[in-house]
């Protein structure tokens, strides 16, 4: 568990070097992996407060 929150976004050089179509392909490949390895979501403890999303 991370003990920090870093608000600086650092995009890896390899993504920057890719063309739009290469990036799209990589993105789809990774999305397939994410979907197949998705774990069960955590159920949050909630108060009675209604947040307006």
């Amino acid at each position: 568990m991370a003990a920090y929150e870093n608000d600086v976004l650092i995009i890896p050089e390899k993504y920057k070097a890719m063309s739009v179509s290469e990036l799209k392909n990589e993105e789809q490949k990774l999305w397939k992996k994410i979907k197949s390895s998705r774990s069960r979501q955590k159920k949050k403890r909630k108060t009675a407060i209604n947040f307006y999303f």
Partner: protein
Amino acid sequence: MRELEEQRNGRNKNTIIDYKYINSNRFRKRFDLISNNKKLNKLLYKTAKKMLLHRSGTEYEDMYWIDLKKFKIVCKITDSKYKKKILYTSAIKKIIKNSENLLTIHTHPDSFPPSIDDINSNYDHNYEIGIIACHDGRVYMYSAEERINANYYKMIVEGYLKNGYNEDTAQVEALKEMQKNFLIHFKEVTEDGRI
């Protein structure tokens, strides 16, 4: 007091807040649109204002943790020496571990939307909700019931950057996409409630 803070940390004109706006009713009204609990909204407004006045002209962030059952600030970091990031002390980690139903509120000097670390930290620590008070007066709220793959998020942001979006809007659009694919909630709290 304000001048002393700015001198101590080096004045950064890009992160100086608009004092007139932060003290206005228009800014206060944003907080009425966060929840159905007036007491909480008022506490968030007061805390946000305090943090922004404290950090104006600097790249450092303040962060507060609020117990949503007691409407009480349980811990805070207001002396961070790290630019644009919050490092949890062991005392903070202990308090978080022993608390439930926490809300976090922190500042963003560069006025960007929630970072990937903000979203994943919300999930990891089981915070009920996170609020960001930006130095330009914008307010964001977010909550995550799932971790986001950081590389996937970065690819999406890079895709928007390549399509001519600036860093701020690329991140906003990427977060909107994340909302479609992951169990996260995010929105800018606008003055009139419009998205």
